[in-house]
């Protein structure tokens, strides 16, 4: 039996005989009959050409993000894709190698990871960053478990802002239920921002961490210094989650405001929006807690000739060495996406990222002004609160209803908050990036006028 060729009838007979079984059904007897199907109602097999043509026709009825004025965000953002990014990451040395970490053969990969960590460290304002995690949601989970470890497992409460992306909170709930950690959710005030006093009161002296998102799920920038102080007053760590990483080009990361962990999603750094990802989690903390950090870490060293070289370091925290007592069950990193983000950030440069972020912010402000000018029945849910490039728009109907009506006017106007729960109005999260030319803003404003 060749490893690349599927098992034929003869192979199957051989395998069953070896197992002492009479039939395939016997092999799968442990699967309950109720969930098995006898036959699938499929059309007869078709040739490859037919399938390509037919599926192509079906796919062409989808609406691509770039085919309309698009304001989708809510955790996944559309930003410029310089062609250098794909050119570098498609190199076989990077693309076909599955996360190689042996320093003898992987200096290129390890250097990229080291550069990624350096970039994340600078953007977050914290001095240690890891080699990346799977996505923003699991980075939040890791931050909570990290805080629990740093406080030696003695504090079983975590205070979580309701304005952290609802999907992230669901992932967190899934993980920490088993860890026996209790979650207290704090809703935002009437301005869509957290009230530090409420955080302080909820955390008391029982919380291992206070986790907040900024800009939050509603696009609003939180008062990070006040929130860090509120967390620290009761001895909890302060955790900032960032879902729109480009905001870090304009807004200082939580490390500058005494946050202990800044983590989140770096999809904005060169990774095209796609169903199911891939995404890219990042995690940075104060180096005094370095040994509790989850995931891989590349370090700089010298080789036997005294030349600068890179290798994984502090691996004794990790699962392949520490087994059940490892700091995390992540024993890898999101290598190719970390490379993407690194090339993208290095292509942008510090000033480029700032210009890009400024452009997102300015366009967002411009769109808010235009929508305010359209007026009734459209309104911005939290008009007085500072935003980066996203805001909640409320109109005549539910969010899902508005999306459909605006799509029929040729505009993908945003992500509906309908069905997410939350103490905010049912509406549309509208995100603006540098990829929205002035004509997009006009298209949305005229569609809103038309539906008013």
């Amino acid at each position, binding site marked *: 039996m060749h490893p690349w060729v599927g098992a034929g009838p003869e192979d199957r007979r051989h395998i069953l005989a070896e197992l002492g079984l009479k039939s395939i059904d016997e092999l799968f007897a442990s699967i309950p009959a109720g969930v098995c199907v006898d036959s699938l109602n499929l059309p007869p097999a078709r040739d490859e050409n037919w399938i390509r043509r037919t599926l192509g026709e079906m796919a062409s009825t989808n609406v691509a993000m770039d085919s309309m004025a698009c304001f989708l965000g809510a955790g996944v953002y559309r930003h410029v894709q310089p062609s250098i990014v794909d050119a570098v990451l498609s190199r076989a040395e990077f693309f076909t190698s599955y996360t190689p970490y042996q320093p003898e053969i992987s200096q290129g990969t390890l250097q990229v990871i080291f550069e990624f960590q350096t970039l994340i460290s600078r953007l977050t304002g914290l001095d240690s960053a890891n080699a990346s995690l799977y996505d923003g949601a699991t980075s939040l989970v890791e931050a909570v478990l990290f805080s629990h470890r740093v406080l030696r497992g003695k504090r079983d409460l975590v205070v979580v802002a309701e304005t952290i992306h609802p999907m992230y909170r669901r992932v967190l709930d899934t993980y920490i239920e088993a860890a026996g950690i209790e979650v207290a959710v704090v809703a935002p005030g009437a301005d869509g921002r957290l009230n530090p006093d409420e955080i302080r009161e909820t955390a008391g002296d029982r919380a291992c961490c206070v986790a907040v998102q900024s800009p939050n799920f509603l696009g609003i920038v939180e008062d990070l210094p006040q929130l860090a102080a509120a967390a620290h007053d009761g001895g909890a760590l302060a955790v900032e989650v960032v879902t729109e990483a480009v905001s870090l080009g304009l807004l200082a990361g939580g490390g500058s405001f005494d946050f202990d962990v800044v983590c989140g999603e770096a999809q904005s750094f060169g990774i095209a929006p796609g169903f199911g990802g891939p995404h890219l989690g990042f995690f940075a903390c104060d180096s005094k807690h370095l*040994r509790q950090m989850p995931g891989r870490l590349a370090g700089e060293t010298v080789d036997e000739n005294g030349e600068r070289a890179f290798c994984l370091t502090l691996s004794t925290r990790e699962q392949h*060495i520490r087994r059940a007592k490892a700091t995390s069950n992540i024993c890898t990193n999101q290598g190719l996406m970390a490379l993407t983000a690194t090339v993208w950030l290095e292509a942008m440069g510090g000033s480029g990222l700032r210009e890009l972020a400024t452009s997102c912010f300015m366009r967002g402000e411009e769109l808010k002004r235009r929508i305010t000018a359209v007026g009734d029945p459209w309104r911005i849910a939290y008009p007085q609160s500072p935003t980066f490039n996203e805001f909640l728009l409320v109109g005549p109907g539910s969010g899902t209803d508005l999306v459909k009506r605006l799509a029929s006017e040729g505009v993908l106007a945003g992500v509906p908050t309908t069905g997410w729960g939350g103490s905010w109005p049912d509406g549309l999260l509208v995100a603006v990036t540098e990829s929205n030319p002035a004509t997009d803003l006009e298209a949305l404003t005229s569609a809103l006028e038309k539906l008013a």
Partner: protein
Amino acid sequence: MMSIPDELKYGRSHEWVKADGDAVVVGITHYAQDQLGEVVYVELPEVGNAFAVGDELGTLESVKAVSEFLAPVAGEVTEVNTRLEDEPNLVNDDPYGDGWLVKLRGSAESEELLDAAGYKEFLEQESA
């Protein structure tokens, strides 16, 4: 040859114990540090915490592995060796002296503990 001072008592997880007033000093044996290799980080318990025999007191990280060290006697932590924060290598260089780990309020007179001869025999059995 592994050093096993006569005046100390020993736990079966390779800690040594020495009476010190109403407390005991705890460290790891010469054999244990040799097995671990170069120690690069020591995680110590908090003063005031109480431990039962066999509880995990802290961890020792070497270039090869991370290992727990256990409480050879029951007691409350009265002091930890803070020098190890910056000089973890003391555990290797002077395991029975400056490389001590913690002081526990407790007694070295425990039936669980071995004397030097008993520990030597225990090591020989383990390596047999």
